C-alpha cells in the first residue's frame, strides 16, 4: 500500500550514521587525544608562589641594618579588562600613559588569560589609594611582595643589593624562576641561601575569572614557604656610619677588624650611595646613574681595589726580615734624601735599627733589609720566591676573606714575571728594589693591609676577615660561623719589636701630629704612595691599644697627599671613637676637617686644567 515505506531504513540509517560519526569524534577527543587534558589543567590550575620574607641583617650590637617592607605589584588579566580611565589610573600610580599602554600590550602578548605584572613595587601609600579605586578597573589586581629597607642608609657595599634573577642564575640553579629575587652583591649575595629562605609553591583551582576556588588534590602537591634566616653581622653600625661620614668628599676606603676574631667592624668605601636606591620603582634608573658616575660609587674599594701599599708595607718587610733572622740586631746607615739607590724622605739619626727605621719610615733601611732578605738565599730568584711565599703566608697577595663577595687578590710580582721582563738571571735585588718600600708592581687591597696589622696585633695569627658572625635560626638559636685561623709563628719578641716601632710612629714618628690620642698607647704606620697621575695617595694602618688590641685598621685615601694628611686622622678618629666613645675636644678639629674636606671636586678642578 505504501510504496515508500522502505525509505524508513534510509532515515534510520542516516540517524545511525550521524550518531556513529559523533561517537567516533568523541572517542578521538576523549580517549585518543590527550592534549585536551593538558589544556584543561592549564585552564584550572594556578601555581601560586608564596615568597617568604628575606632574612633581616643586624649589626653586632643588634641594630637593624636591613629589614623588609611590604610593596605591591599591579597585575592584570587582559581578558577581564574593560575600557577604563587611563588618565586617572596613571595619576594614582604615577606612571606615564605611554608606559602603561606599553606594559598592557606586553601582558596581552604574554597571555590573555593569565595575570602578568604591569607595574611593580608600589609603595604602601600608593597601594592604599589604588586599593580604594580598584573596583573601577576590572581585570586589575594587586600582589604583595617584600622589599628591602635600610633604616640608616649605611654600609651599601657591605650589605649588597637584591635584584631580579637573570637567566644565568636560573640556568645555574633550578630553584630560581623568572621574577624571583636574588642577592646580587655583598652579604646579600654571600649569604643568599640563608637569607632567601625557601619559597612555597601551592596549586590552586581557579575559575574562568581566575578566582581561587580551592586547593588541588587537597594540597598534597603544595610545599610550605620557609622564612629566611636572620643574620648577625660583625659590623659596628655606629662606627661604620662614623667612618662613612669621615670619608665624605673623598675617594678611598676604611676597613677595621677586631684582631682576636677577624670580625670586620667597619668596611666603608667612598664615594658611597644610599642602598635604598636599589629598591623600588626607580631602581634601574638609579642603577644606571651610579654606573656611569666616573667615581664609581658602586665599587667596594676596601676589598675590590688594589693599590701599591707604600710605606705601610714596611711592616711586612720587617716581619719577613725578622723571620729570616736578618734584622734583629742590624743597624743600617741612611743619608737622608741623598741616599742611593732609594732616597729617604727626611733626615734622621744614622745608622739606625729596625724600631727607629719604622718610626722614621726610613727607605734606606728597608731597602738594605730587603737586599739582606733576598741575598739570604743563594740566588735572587730563590730569594724573591721565599719573600713572595712569606707575603702570601701573612695574607698579602691572595684572597683572605672568609665570606666576602667581590674580593680581589692583589698582586705580588713573581720570579716568572721578572724573568720575562729582564730575562732569567738578568735581575737581582737592586733591580726589584721598589718592592722594599711597597711601590712598583706590588698591589694589595686595603683589606690585606688591615689584616696585616691584625696579625701584628695578635702577635702571630690572623683569622680570615669576615662580615657575618652568626646565623639566627627560626627557633631563636644562634649558629656561630667558624672561620679559619692562620698562625705565623715568627717569635713573640719579633712582633713586639714591630709593635714598638709602630708605637713610636704614633708617639713621635711620622704620624705624631695627626694620630696621637691622649692616654691611648697604640701602634700605626703611615704610607705615602707616589702616584704618577696626580697627588700621592694617603695610607695609614694601625692597631689599638698596643696591649690587648681591640681594633686593627687600614685607611687608604686616593690622592690624599701623604699618610699623615688624611689616613692617620681618619684612622685615629675611628680608633678614638671606638675605644673612648668620644672624640677629645682638642682633636675635634680633625673630625670637622675630615668631614668637610672635599677631594673629589678638587680633583675635578685639577682635571679641568
Amino acid at each position: 500500500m505504501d510504496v515508500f515505506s522502505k525509505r524508513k531504513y534510509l532515515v534510520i540509517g542516516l540517524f545511525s550514521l550521524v550518531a556513529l560519526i559523533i561517537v567516533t569524534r568523541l572517542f578521538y577527543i576523549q580517549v585518543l587525544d590527550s592534549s585536551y587534558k593538558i589544556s584543561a589543567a592549564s585552564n584550572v590550575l594556578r601555581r601560586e608562589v608564596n615568597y617568604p620574607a628575606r632574612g633581616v641583617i643586624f649589626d653586632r650590637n643588634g641594630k637593624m641594618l636591613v629589614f623588609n617592607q611590604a610593596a605591591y605589584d599591579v597585575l592584570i588579566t587582559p581578558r577581564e579588562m574593560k575600557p577604563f580611565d587611563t588618565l586617572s589610573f596613571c595619576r594614582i600610580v604615577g606612571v606615564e600613559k605611554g608606559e602603561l599602554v606599553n606594559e598592557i600590550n606586553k601582558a596581552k602578548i604574554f597571555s590573555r588569560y593569565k595575570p602578568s605584572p604591569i607595574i611593580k613595587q608600589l609603595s604602601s601609600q600608593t597601594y592604599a589609594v589604588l586599593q580604594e579605586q580598584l573596583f573601577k578597573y576590572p581585570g586589575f589586581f594587586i600582589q604583595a611582595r617584600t622589599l628591602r629597607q635600610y633604616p640608616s642608609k649605611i654600609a651599601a657595599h657591605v650589605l649588597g643589593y637584591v635584584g631580579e634573577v637573570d637567566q644565568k642564575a636560573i640556568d645555574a640553579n633550578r630553584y630560581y624562576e623568572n621574577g624571583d629575587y636574588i642577592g646580587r652583591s655583598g652579604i646579600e649575595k654571600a649569604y643568599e641561601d640563608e637569607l632567601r629562605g625557601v619559597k612555597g609553591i601551592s596549586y590552586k583551582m581557579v575559575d574562568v575569572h581566575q578566582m581561587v576556588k580551592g586547593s588541588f588534590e587537597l594540597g598534597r602537591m603544595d610545599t610550605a614557604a620557609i622564612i629566611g634566616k636572620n643574620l648577625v653581622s660583625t659590623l659596628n653600625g655606629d662606627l661604620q656610619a662614623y667612618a662613612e661620614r669621615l670619608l665624605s668628599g673623598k675617594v678611598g676606603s676604611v676597613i677595621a677588624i677586631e684582631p682576636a676574631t677577624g670580625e670586620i667592624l667597619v668596611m666603608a668605601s667612598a664615594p658611597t650611595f644610599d642602598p635604598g636606591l636599589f629598591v623600588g620603582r626607580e631602581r634601574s634608573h638609579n642603577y644606571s646613574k651610579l654606573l656611569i658616575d666616573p667615581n664609581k660609587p658602586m665599587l667596594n674599594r676596601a676589598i675590590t681595589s688594589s693599590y701599591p701599599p707604600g710605606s705601610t708595607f714596611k711592616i711586612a718587610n720587617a716581619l719577613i726580615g725578622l723571620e729570616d733572622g736578618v734584622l734583629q740586631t742590624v743597624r743600617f746607615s741612611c743619608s737622608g734624601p741623598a741616599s742611593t739607590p732609594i732616597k729617604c724622605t727626611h733626615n734622621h739619626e744614622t745608622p739606625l735599627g729596625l724600631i727607629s727605621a719604622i718610626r722614621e719610615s726610613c727607605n734606606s733601611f728597608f731597602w738594605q733589609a730587603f737586599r739582606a732578605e733576598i741575598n739570604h738565599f743563594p740566588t735572587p730568584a730563590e730569594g724573591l720566591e721565599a719573600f713572595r711565599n712569606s707575603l702570601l703566608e701573612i695574607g698579602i697577595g691572595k684572597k683572605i676573606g672568609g665570606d666576602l663577595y667581590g674580593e680581589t687578590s692583589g698582586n705580588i710580582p713573581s720570579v716568572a714575571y721578572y724573568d720575562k721582563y729582564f730575562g732569567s738571571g738578568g735581575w737581582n735585588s737592586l733591580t726589584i728594589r721598589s718592592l722594599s718600600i711597597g711601590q712598583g708592581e706590588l698591589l694589595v687591597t686595603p683589606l690585606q693591609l688591615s689584616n696585616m696589622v691584625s696579625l701584628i696585633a695578635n702577635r702571630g695569627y690572623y683569622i680570615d676577615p669576615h662580615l657575618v658572625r652568626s646565623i639566627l635560626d627560626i627557633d631563636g638559636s644562634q649558629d656561630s660561623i667558624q672561620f679559619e685561623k692562620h698562625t705565623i709563628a715568627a717569635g713573640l719578641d719579633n712582633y713586639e719589636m714591630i709593635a714598638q716601632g709602630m708605637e713610636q710612629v704614633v708617639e713621635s714618628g711620622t704620624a705624631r701630629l695627626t694620630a696621637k690620642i691622649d692616654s691611648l698607647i697604640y701602634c700605626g704606620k703611615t704610607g705615602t704612595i707616589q702616584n704618577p697621575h696626580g697627588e700621592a695617595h694617603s695610607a695609614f694602618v694601625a692597631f689599638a691599644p698596643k696591649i690587648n688590641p681591640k681594633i686593627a685598621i687600614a685607611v687608604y685615601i686616593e690622592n690624599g697627599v701623604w699618610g699623615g694628611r688624611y689616613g692617620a686622622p681618619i684612622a685615629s678618629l675611628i680608633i678614638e671613637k671606638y675605644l673612648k666613645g668620644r672624640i677629645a675636644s682638642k682633636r675635634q678639629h680633625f673630625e670637622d676637617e675630615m668631614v668637610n674636606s672635599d677631594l673629589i671636586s678638587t680633583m675635578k678642578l685639577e682635571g679641568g686644567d
Partner: protein
Amino acid sequence: MKTNNNIWLNLDWATVLLYLLLVILGWVNIYAAVYSEEHQSILDAGQKYGKQLIWIIAGVILAIMVLSVDSKFYAAFAYHIYAVTILLLIAVLFLGKEVNGAKAWFEFGNIALQPAELGKFATNLALAKCLSQFDFKIQKMRSYLILVALIAIPSILIILQNDTGSALVFAVFVLVFYREGLNGMVLFWGFAAAALFILSLVLDQFKLLLFLLTISVAAYGVLRQSVKEALIGFMSIIGIFGITWLINRLFSLDGKPMELLVTTTLLATVLVVIYGILRRVQQVWRILLFFIFAIGISMSVNYFYKNVMAPHQRDRIDQVLGIKIDKLGKGYNVNQSKIAIGSGGFIGKGFLKGTQTKYNFVPEQSTDFIFCTVGEEWGFVGATVVLGLFLILLIRLVTLAERQRSQFSRVYGYGVACILFFHIAINISMTIGLAPVIGIPLPFFSYGGSSLWAFTVLLFIFLRLDASRTENLR
C-alpha cells in the same frame, strides 16, 4: 471516561520512559553545570536547577494536558494553530524583547516564551495536514510550492528575529518529504549542494575545478557502468590539458594554471557535447547538467559567503572548516567546549568533579553547551550512553510513525523524529567542533522552560496521535 482509559492503555510507555529519563539526566547535568559549594540545595528556586525542576514538573503537566485532548483536535485545528503561530512570529518582531541580539522572546512576568519554539510543532502539524490531503501528490510542482511556502514563512520570520539557528531546523523537513515520496534526486542534489558549499570554501578554485572534472568523469563511468569509458574520459582531459600546456609554452602565452584548466574544461565540454549529439548517449546530458550546476553553485557560494552572510556567521563556519583558527576570539567557545569534553577521558571525572564546567570555562554551559558537562563528568562512556538513548528514541519514533494508520500521524511522527534529530546532531556536533555554533538547544537537556515545553508538546502530540493510531485522521 471511556476514551481516556483507552489513551493510557494505548500510550507508548517506552517513549514516555525515555522522555522522563532524558529530562532527569538533563536536570542532573544542569545541576552539575551550575553547582557551587555555596548553593547545594537541589530545590533552590533561585538557582537554574531549581527553576528547571519547576519547568520539568510544568512540562509533565503540559504533557498530560496534551494527552487529554482528543486526537482529532490536532488534525482539525492544524492550520489554525499554524496561523496563530505565524501571527505570534510576526508580533514578536514588534513586541518582543531582545535577548543576546535575537528579538525572539515574549515576556510574561517571570516566564519568557519563544514563538520560534511553537513554530516547530505548528509547522509540523500544518505539513502533516497538507501532505495527508486526498488530492495531494508530492511529485507535482504545485505541491512543492505549497510545502516550500509552509516552511519558508516561519523560517523567514525567524531569520528576521535574528535567530538563524532556529530557522535552519526547518531544512530537516526535507527528510520527511523524502519519506513521503519526494524524488530521491532532490535529496541527492541537496546533499551535493551542501558538499559543494563546503568544498568551495575549503579548496581553491583550481583544485575545486579539478575535483569537479574528476567527479563528473567518474560519475559518467558509474552511470555507463563502464570503467573503460571513465578511463577514456580521464585520458582525454589529461591529453587536452597537455596540448593546452604545450601551446602555452610554445607560443610563450604566459597563461596561468587556472586559465589553462578553464581552457581545457571548455574544450572538453565542446567535445562532450559533440560526442553526445553524434552517439546519442543520454548520460552525457545528465553529467553535463550536474557539472554546470556544480560550477554555478560554487561560484554563487563565494558570492553568498562574502556578500550575504554576516561576519559572525562566516566566522563560525570558518572555525568549523578550519579556515581560520582563533582559539581565543571567535573560536573560544568551541575550543573551551572541546577542552571540557576532551578532558573527560574514557569514564569521566565523576559527578560534580568537572572542573571546566564547574568553574565556568565553558560559556552557556547550562543551555547550548550542556553536553560539555556530560562529556566532562561522565566521559566517553556517559556521552555514548546519552547519544545511544537519543538514537533509541529516534528509532522508536520512526517505528511508531510507520505503524500509524493515518498519513497525518505518520508525517507528524516523522517530523518529530527529524526535528529532534537535527537538534541533537547539530547541538552535540557543535560542542565537539563538527558543526558551526548556531545556538540551538539539546532537546530535554538544555536549561530553559521554553525549549523544554516546546519539545514536550511536540513529542506528546505525537504520542497522543499514536495512542489513537487506528483512527484515520486527516
